[in-house]
């Protein structure tokens, strides 16, 4: 009776002998180590701190921009446009592949030199390959009377709040 019980109890253990057990333990440990290495490698390659220029920039006093003018800020990749409705800011980075666009006063449009996309002064797309219009950026006056633009925040095109009136 006692012998039979012992045999019955040891039956499931026979499915996994010592060699298989250590093999599985070893492979399992390697698997965990591989997943951990992959996770740490990904984290390592993903920078936590970026020493990139601030998205908020000071573009100076509003009177620098005459009425009905489009001014390209080459270093910051934005347009400051003084229209009848007020001042607004437009991204100058083409929505196609990131080239810097240029204002063409003789054609009254914004054009991209890389692949020929064309936009209206309001950022609206005239012609591809750009998939989207040029986004509007948040613009406001600070206490010193300087215009500030936040390049990381898109605002609704042509909306009342998207203009600055002086």
């Amino acid at each position, binding site marked *: 009776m006692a012998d039979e019980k012992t045999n019955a109890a040891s039956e499931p253990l026979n499915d996994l002998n010592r060699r298989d057990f250590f093999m599985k333990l070893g492979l399992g440990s390697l698997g965990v180590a591989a997943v951990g290495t992959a996770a740490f490698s990904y984290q390592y*390659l*993903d*920078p936590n701190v*970026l*020493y*990139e220029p601030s998205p908020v920039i000071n573009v100076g006093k509003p009177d620098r921009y005459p009425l009905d003018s489009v001014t390209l800020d080459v270093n910051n990749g934005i347009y400051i446009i003084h229209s009848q409705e007020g001042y607004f800011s437009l991204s100058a980075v083409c929505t196609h*592949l*990131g*080239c810097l666009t240029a204002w063409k006063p003789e054609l009254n449009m914004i054009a991209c030199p*890389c692949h020929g996309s064309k936009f209206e002064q309001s950022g609206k797309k005239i012609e591809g390959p750009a998939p989207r219009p040029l986004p509007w950026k948040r613009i406001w006056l600070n206490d010193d009377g300087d215009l500030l633009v936040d390049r990381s925040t898109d605002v609704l095109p042509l909306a009342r709040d998207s203009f600055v009136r002086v």
Partner: protein
Amino acid sequence: MAKTVDQYFDDLRGTRVWRSIFRSGTGSSTLKRALAIQQNVFLHLFSTKVRVRMLSFSATWYLGTLTLGTFLILVATGIPLMLYYHPSVPQAYADTKDLQFVVSSGMFLRNLHRWSAHAMVFLVFAHMFKVFYRGAYRTPREFNWVIGVILLLITLLLSYTGYLLPWDQLAYWAITVGSNIASAVPLVGDKIHFLLLGGNAVNANALLRFYVLHCMILPLTAMFFVAIHFWRIRKDGGLYSHGSEPGTMKTKTDVVAAAKEAQ
């Protein structure tokens, strides 16, 4: 009687030092010649015997060997260029100009590196076309074709990463456009773009990442796959030559052509 150059070379091969290095001694028997290949660390990847027909220009146009040649030139010129080039935003462009106008032989090395890079891309494509149109990718060589496709991608990535290093307007905007193409990958595109550049824009991190990819990661990966590529040629029965495969001579034209070749 004066000794010929061959005899001097045979004497050299008989010396104790030579034999301690190369093992196979003098003699030009088939065995000795086979051993000379088999016991050389660089040559042992290749077959010990090759049919003369397979070494003819028309069989391969030597395109694979020429590609390896340009790769070796790129390594040999790239390493000295690294001695004067700093992968940092304030210095990269100035260093490139110094290499071009100030450093002795800098212009020669840089231009050799550039032309070899262009030649390598051209030769890789030519090699693939030759292999494709001759049908040399077929069984048992499918796996080597796959390795070849990987090597094509590595070649293009080497070319792309090297393009940023001069840090001029052309480089900056080419990498801006190229990295934005990576953003088009569904779901993870923006993350790939961010990891590739190490930031949101082509900047100091991007320059350093492309430098490390260009000078370390990609060349080492290329060497790894080139080794497999060459080893696979031996394992798949040597260089491909028309009619060398069993069962390929089926049509009457093939048999006649083979008979002509045998004459």
